[in-house]
């Protein structure tokens, strides 16, 4: 059992609890930086894919996990970020300018959309944002002169601090670029959560009436949350475009939106870890399935016949299992396992059980 004695407010304000926890994360970071020398290029590409998904997941996590507003339209913002980045690059802008600008543009559009959309709640908001996601396909086709329509676009190599980087030519450098962006976004996210704005997101998620009574402007907070969420998603989309190298109107379909939402639910809503855990599941599941298919085929002699829809079937199954048995997602399960070890042998089975909740005030809307 490890007990942290607190003698200073900074111990609660800084992101890590103690030196032990900090060193664990530093070791993880060291491994991530060293990854190109530890795994081959194929798996490095897969890890890159996971990180790109994690960035997109972090974007949705701000809105859904921390502010409590469901969105089934985030593929639209992935698309916007991706196309904005490429169009700015093609206009001759350097990547170091075009990339952040793509995020800002997506964030600004997000705020504009949020102002009417966030008047809706729950399922209605989900449907409205889903409609947006479905429209994206048509909008990309209609704006063909800029987006290339059905033919699509190719991602050019990008110049980062004088190093030319592209997905296939320089996989190591490409990985480090994505890792760097991931780390920066995660640090910003952590900072936000320990500052007043992040707390006001959580307040709006848990009780809008009392958030208002505490002086939080609910509509404004939601719009800011939507903007930040879209900006991060836009950056994720820009990187997704570079990773895919070629994309068209069908790349960012509504299926991606749904996958993104499922991802953060499986990972664990309301935690930064959740976005990463979810991304690992999403990123590695197809590879895991195709590898296990070979083993299964070898055992039963069925060969490696592709089963249509297998990936989504397994994915749906995982989602159902999590909603039934672990609504807090992988991160929730991880917390339980960690607590078990930390408190050994004092862990009790009902430690994480919610106490019966009490009647809520009639919501004033």
């Amino acid at each position, binding site marked *: 059992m490890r007990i942290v004695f607190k003698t200073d407010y900074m111990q609660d304000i800084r992101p890590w609890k103690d030196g032990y926890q900090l060193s664990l994360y530093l070791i993880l970071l060291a491994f991530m930086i060293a990854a190109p020398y530890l795994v081959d290029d194929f798996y490095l590409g897969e890890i890159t894919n996971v990180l790109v998904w994690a960035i997109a997941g972090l974007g949705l996590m701000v809105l859904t996990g921390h502010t409590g507003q469901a969105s089934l339209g985030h593929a639209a913002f992935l698309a916007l970020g991706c196309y904005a980045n490429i169009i700015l690059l093609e206009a001759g802008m350097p990547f170091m300018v075009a990339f952040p600008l793509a995020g800002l543009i997506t964030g600004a559009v997000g705020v504009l959309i949020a102002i009417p959309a966030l008047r809706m709640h729950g399922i209605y908001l989900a449907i409205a944002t889903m409609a947006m996601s479905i429209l994206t396909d048509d909008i990309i086709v209609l704006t063909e002169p800029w987006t290339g329509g059905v033919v699509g676009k190719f991602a050019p190599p990008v110049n980062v601090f004088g190093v030319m980087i592209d997905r296939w030519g320089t996989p190591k450098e490409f990985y480090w670029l994505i890792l760097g962006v991931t780390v920066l976004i995660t640090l910003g996210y952590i900072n936000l959560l320990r500052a007043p704005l992040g707390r006001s997101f959580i307040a709006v998620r848990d009780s809008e009436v009392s958030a208002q009574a505490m002086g*939080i402007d609910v509509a404004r907070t939601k719009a800011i949350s939507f903007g930040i969420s879209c900006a991060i998603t836009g950056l994720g989309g820009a990187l997704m475009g570079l990773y895919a190298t070629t994309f068209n109107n069908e790349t960012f379909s509504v299926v991606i939106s749904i996958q993104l939402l499922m991802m953060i639910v499986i990972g664990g809503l309301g935690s930064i870890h959740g976005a990463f855990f979810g991304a690992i599941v999403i990123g590695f599941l197809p590879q895991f399935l195709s590898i296990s298919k070979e083993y299964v085929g070898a055992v039963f002699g069925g060969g490696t016949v592709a089963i249509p829809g297998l990936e989504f079937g397994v994915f749906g199954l995982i989602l159902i299992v999590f909603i039934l048995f672990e609504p807090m997602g992988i991160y929730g399960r991880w917390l339980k396992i960690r607590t078990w070890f930390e408190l050994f042998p004092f862990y009790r089975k009902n430690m994480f059980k919610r106490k019966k909740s009490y009647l809520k005030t009639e919501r004033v809307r």
Partner: protein
Amino acid sequence: MSLLDFQNVTLKFGGLVAVNDLSFSVEEGEVFAIVGPNGAGKSTVFNLISRFYDPYAGSIQFDGHDLLRSKASGVATFGVARTFQNIELFDHATVLQNLLVGRHRHRSTNLLSELFFTPSVRKQEIQNRHMVEEVIDFLDLQPYRDSLIAGLPYGVRKVVELGRALATGPKLLLLDEPASGLSVEETTDMRWWIDDIRRQMGITVLMVEHDMGLVSSVSDRVLAMADGARLALGTPKEVQSDPAVIEAYLGHVA
């Protein structure tokens, strides 16, 4: 001039008159209680002050501000804090986070500085924490700092909600049934706290309460309401012996 001024306020929900031409004023530094049978419109008065409802007629002044011209989120910035009848805490956050949200109205940093957690944000956070620790000390909440609200017993939640309202550093504290659902000991604690809030912190308290023992022991003046209108206003003793109040609670003498 009084701290809070209710002038001829009327609120209608369709044909139902919830608050009917109600006038009263709360003086600075007093404990003012509102009593009345269920459905008398007591909580509605609170929700009017919090700007959850727009009155049909009348005016509400607080400390020289016209509350009716402010947004719901603006009321807290003038220095009005409140608790709710059926506890409205942020369930999936810790006690500490809940109390820190109370400090939100003092926020002077913006999105950009918070994103980089600049030294000014750090300074503000330490300041916020310091104020919150004083509330924790005052209400004996030390054992619960890092517990999630969702796992706490009812009595503690009630205290946390009072703490969150105090953390805002208010001039006027609205307590909606502070003793409902509390045990005898907890009610006694609440009574001393309300007394201390007024005497030590100099905060004016406006409360809705059914427990007449608590009301008569802490409040300076009592407003009795029935059917959205004023029945009687005076010291607890005067109100309790007022024939109109007795009639409203017990009915006519046959």
